[in-house]
């Protein structure tokens, strides 16, 4: 079963504020930035799309109401909704903040049918939060996601095993999760436009063109997907810890860029320390003011690190060898090549002092809130937080449960 919350952020805002109900609204990430994160169905009906600038949205729909998003509201709601899912099955996989898969195979003896579970989930979400979702029920994850997309908003679509070939025959390939625009173009050049055509295509032809994923593509066209629903706590170990931020305004002052880099290093470092991981590779990502040009570079160190100042120095080392071509719009730091470790006490006095100071800082911040104690150069007023966007990797639990503002 796949559950997709309909226009999630916009629906939550409409539920919280009766004045917004039934009106075209667009949710934006923060006061300083102008890109539409999501919009209500009323706005979508008038042509407003995710990713549009506010001025474009207003031009498309002059009565559009702009709402600054409240991420805490969305993460709380998503977490509660995932708790509801777990009343029906422990096998729940959060795909993003507004999408989850449930394997209800072993719950049918208690709840009867998957449709019955779907109706109960829809009713509880509507009752508790006043918002709707679309649910797809099918034999596997690929088809369940396809089914949930077939009826929006507030839909329930069931694809039974015997209906799979008929459903897929005329279905455009772009509707399959995992086939993006680029892949669609490649397949179109092979005269493959529908899932039916993809499923019938000679496997050798696909593997010649796409390598090992050719086999997977053919299976997708046939509606075959054996990937399991991976429940909370049973995911593979995380491969990296990272944060990125769009700045409140484009900046070119090196001191300001460094300050921002330190803030990101502290965010990455504190999360890595909380989950007891350290890494050897630091990746710095910079997106320029024109939105389209960007670069990313990485460095691998001799030893594993997770202290914020060490991450900062490594990231700064990368920044210093690059001449910035334009003002900076977005900065990101990722720590990878991770070791899930037991903590080791440093041998030298200075290193030990630094570790104890960091631990003291972390425990104060855990108790009183993020950035209660921080570096002097990040004191309130100097920090330009930028817009806060919930990353696609956000999850209700674990290391990916990022504390978004």
């Amino acid at each position: 079963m796949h559950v997709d919350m309909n226009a999630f952020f916009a629906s939550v805002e409409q539920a919280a504020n009766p004045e917004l109900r039934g009106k075209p609204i667009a949710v934006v990430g923060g006061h300083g930035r102008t890109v539409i994160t999501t919009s209500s169905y009323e706005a979508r009906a008038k042509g407003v799309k995710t990713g549009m600038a506010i001025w474009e949205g207003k031009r498309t729909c002059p009565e559009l109401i702009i709402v600054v998003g409240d991420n805490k509201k969305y993460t709380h709601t998503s977490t509660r909704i995932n708790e509801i899912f777990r009343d029906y099955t422990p096998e729940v996989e959060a795909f993003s903040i507004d999408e989850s898969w449930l394997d209800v195979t072993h719950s049918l003896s208690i709840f009867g049918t998957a449709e019955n579970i779907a109706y109960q989930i829809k009713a509880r979400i509507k009752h508790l939060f006043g918002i709707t979702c679309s649910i797809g029920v099918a034999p596997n994850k690929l088809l369940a996601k396809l089914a949930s997309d077939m009826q929006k908003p507030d839909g329930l679509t069931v694809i039974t095993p015997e209906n799979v070939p008929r459903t897929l025959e005329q279905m455009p390939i772009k509707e399959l999760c995992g086939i993006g625009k680029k892949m669609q173009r490649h397949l179109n050049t092979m005269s493959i436009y529908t899932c039916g055509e993809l499923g019938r295509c000679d496997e050798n032809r696909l593997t010649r063109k796409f390598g090992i994923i050719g086999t997977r593509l053919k299976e997708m066209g046939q509606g075959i997907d054996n990937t399991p629903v991976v429940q909370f706590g049973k995911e593979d170990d995380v491969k990296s810890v990272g944060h990125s931020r769009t700045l409140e305004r484009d900046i070119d002052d090196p001191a300001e860029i460094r300050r921002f880099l330190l803030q990101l290093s502290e965010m990455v470092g504190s999360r890595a320390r909380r989950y007891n991981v350290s890494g050897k590779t630091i990746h710095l990502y910079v997106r320029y003011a024109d939105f389209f040009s960007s670069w990313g570079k990485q460095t691998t160190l001799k030893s594993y690190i997770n202290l914020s100042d060490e991450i900062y120095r490594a990231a700064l080392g990368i920044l210093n060898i690059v001449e910035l071509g334009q003002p900076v719009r977005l900065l990101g730091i990722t720590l990878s090549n991770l070791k899930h470790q037991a903590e080791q006490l440093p041998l030298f006095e200075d290193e030990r002092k630094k570790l104890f100071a960091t631990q003291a800082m972390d425990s104060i911040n855990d108790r009183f809130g993020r950035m209660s104690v921080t570096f002097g150069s990040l004191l309130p007023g100097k920090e330009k937080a930028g817009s806060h966007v919930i990353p696609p990797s956000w999850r209700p639990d674990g290391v990916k449960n990022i504390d978004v503002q």
Partner: protein
Amino acid sequence: MIINSMRVAVIFGPGRTIKPVWFDWHNRKHTILETTYTWIDMKGNAKRLHFAVRDEGCLYELTYDSAEQTWELSGLEGG
């Protein structure tokens, strides 16, 4: 935040539910007609309960800090 300490009357119901019924603001008692949305966040290890509520004219966000045991008016729209 608009006010960081205010008087709020609430009903503690069964199932650990909290329902704000009125609050004092601008020397006036505001009767809550509807709680439109509730959510929780954490500030450090202190749980903060947020209530979007409306009276006859406006929409307010009331926040209860469970560690400090204080109420604040964190947001206001309309009016």
